[in-house]
């Protein structure tokens, strides 16, 4: 298994390299650094000298892939691509437009992001699976029908309305918890309750419906009939046998997102003023801070690949018949 994991991680290298090259071309090829400088300085102040100064301050005044002015290997290493893009493999992201070091910022913001994303993820998964199993338990009854209708309606509501409605109802009308803010330590629970609750409710519709279809596919299998025949109660059949057998498709959809939880939820964090990576990214997008966006793209892809490997490993845990090799 170790050999398999090592091989999978090695496969990831060319993919990450391509992601790296792709983002580099996107950020430096579509618009030249001159264009970006002109836009960030504002058309009025963009004299040729100002553009040169802006580029020099940020280290953008190099050729993209090949630097004929240097000698030896430096012809290739003293370029924008190596400086701005390849260096991210060593987790050196440089500094944001406000001068802060991006790597340090990311380390500091990971905690709050996880504090909100992890409970949302775990509770949401639990709630959706339990609800789906209940719907399957009451399958082909009015309860099942209206449950599915409810799921479709919930899916059709934009997540923005869940957030706005939840904030308005819980914080403003009932004045139960603060609308938005954040604090460390024990106080944290007061600030996290509402965003976690809203996150769970917002994802409930699509989650429940998806798991219901998965379980319904399992319910007509032979082993279910055997389990019933040997006298197990329907609840035991569902929660012990069907759930266990539906784990593989569930894991396929679920495990891959776990590493990305670090990145937090963009909209949720921004609405609730939680100082995590999601709100960091939104601020960077709004402030057109390309260095930060580029770094987040790279980290996101790296985490996605970790998620793929984790998915494979989780298969062997869930189903002993799966062997990696």
């Amino acid at each position, binding site marked *: 298994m170790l050999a398999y994991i090592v091989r999978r991680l090695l496969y990831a290298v*060319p*993919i*990450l390299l*391509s*992601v790296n090259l*792709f*983002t580099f071309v*996107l*950020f430096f090829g*579509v*618009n030249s650094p001159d*264009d*970006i400088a*002109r*836009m960030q300085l504002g058309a009025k102040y963009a004299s040729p000298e100002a553009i040169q100064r802006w580029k020099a301050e940020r280290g953008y005044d190099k050729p993209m892939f090949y630097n004929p002015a240097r000698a030896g290997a430096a012809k290739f290493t003293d370029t924008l691509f190596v400086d701005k893009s390849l260096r991210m493999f060593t987790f050196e992201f440089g500094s944001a437009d406000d001068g802060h070091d991006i790597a340090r910022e990311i380390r500091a913001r990971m905690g709050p992001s996880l504090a909100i994303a992890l409970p949302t993820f775990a509770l949401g998964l639990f709630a959706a699976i339990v609800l789906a199993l209940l719907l399957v338990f009451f399958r082909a009854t009015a309860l099942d029908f209206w449950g599915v209708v409810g799921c*479709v*309606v919930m*899916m*059709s*509501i*934009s*997540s*923005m*309305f869940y957030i*706005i409605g939840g*904030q*308005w109802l819980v914080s*403003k009308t009932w004045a139960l918890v603060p609308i938005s803010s954040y604090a460390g330590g024990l106080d944290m629970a007061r600030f996290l309750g509402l965003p976690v609750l809203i996150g769970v409710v917002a994802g409930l519709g699509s989650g429940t419906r998806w798991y219901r279809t998965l379980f319904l596919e399992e319910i007509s299998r032979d082993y279910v009939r055997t389990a019933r025949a040997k006298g197990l109660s329907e609840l035991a059949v569902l929660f012990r046998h069907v759930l266990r057998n539906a784990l593989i498709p569930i894991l396929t959809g679920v495990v891959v997102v776990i590493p*990305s939880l670090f*990145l937090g939820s*963009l*909209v949720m964090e*921004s609405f609730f003023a939680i100082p995590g990576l999601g709100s960091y*990214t*939104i601020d960077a*997008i*709004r402030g*057109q801070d*390309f260095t930060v*966006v*580029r770094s*987040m*793209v790279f980290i*996101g*892809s790296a985490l*996605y*690949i970790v998620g793929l490997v984790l998915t494979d490993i989780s298969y062997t845990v869930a189903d002993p018949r799966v062997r990696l090799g």
Partner: protein
Amino acid sequence: MNILPVLLPTDLLIFVLVLAALALAVRARRHAPSREAWRRVGERPTAMAAAVVLLAFAAVGFLDSLHYREQLPPGQGEPAAAKPLYSSEVLSALDALLAPLRLQTEKTYSAPFARQLFQRETVERPGGGQARIHPRLVHGARHLQDGDSLLADVAWRLAWTPLAALAASGLRLLALAAAVARARRCHLDAAARLVLAGRTTLAWRSALAVVFIAVLLSAAGVALATHYHVLGTDKVGQDVLYLSLKSVRTGLVIGTLTTLIMLPFAVALGIAAGYLGGWVDDAVQYLYTVLNAIPSVLLIAASVLMMQVMIDTHQQWFDTAAQRADARLLALCAILGITSWTGLCRLLRGETLKLRELDYVQAARAFGASGAAILRRHILPNVMHIVLITVVLDFSVLVLAEAVLSYVGIGVDPTTISFGTMINMARAELAREPVVWWSLAAAFVFMLALVLSANLLADAVRDAFDPRRVSRA
């Protein structure tokens, strides 16, 4: 008045889309298996109801895609210019229809059916001195005297609307019954009873019910909207009903054009990879793994940021603000398409891998059919159900995504009216006391109607076209 028709790029694509849909409909009628599948869709009451709602939205969106520019009247004392001058404002047929709503703007917020502005203003008293009062609206409820009852006036104006709705759905029922009577060779009267009892093959009764509600609502709109701001006004005094109707086109464009743009790539690459295998397969798989690895929001954000810089630095490409906003909308669709084609491509690759080994494909190959002919005649028609299911399932996801992207600041142009921009503008106002709720409520209701009917139709289409589900049912 002279007008200059304007064809924006998205308009052109919408016309292409409408033609393609018509061609597909004609083809589906002639082709027995797909006629059968569509009949299964039509048997579901929810699907028929959803289809009527979607058709109504599509009509609004289509009217909003017929763009033009008005000719400016010649200036005072100037000789009539040899070349007529046109206003730089691009309008649509919907704007012309809704001219009263578009032009009757107030100063700022006003609640639905309000007579006064939502905020107090300092005004000079006639007798001297100042007072802070809620001033009367310039247009909304202008015809009412101070003592008049709002309720009585609204009820009086609405009096004829149920009749209109009854008449419209009655006519529809008559047409339906005539068709049923001809098909079943029974009396018109018996056919009408069949329709009303819900015993026709297609679920016409639910469609009729929705037609009744839709006509009732639009008749109420026609009756009231010229005299009141039925859904209130927003921060700069624009009628919220007008904004909601204009948002429909943006939502439809994003939901449909995105898939239209990505479809050729996804289909071509997917079936090529599945059928040809070898290095083509490797290359396509590598391409979609790389694109998949980038979290989609971040990829969209990065692409949109770069597109913004490009549009900002090339202002000279666009004559009018509308053209710039339209280019941005189209670019957003393209970007969303690039980030979302991988799922469909993977599905098509897998299905083609399966089909390639089937006997009829082997037989075609043995007869010496060329690879291109096999792909076109034998593979493509047999993966089209996957394409159709993906297209209808993606629609609602894309409409919902627009709102979030606009919030993040990477959505449509701020001047484009969309559900996302409406929510964004209204969001800040919830902190006010009393709450300004009507913009949000309007966006909520319109979006829910659009997305919910899309979801219901998508469900029916998936159940009818997916062979695995059909065999189980």
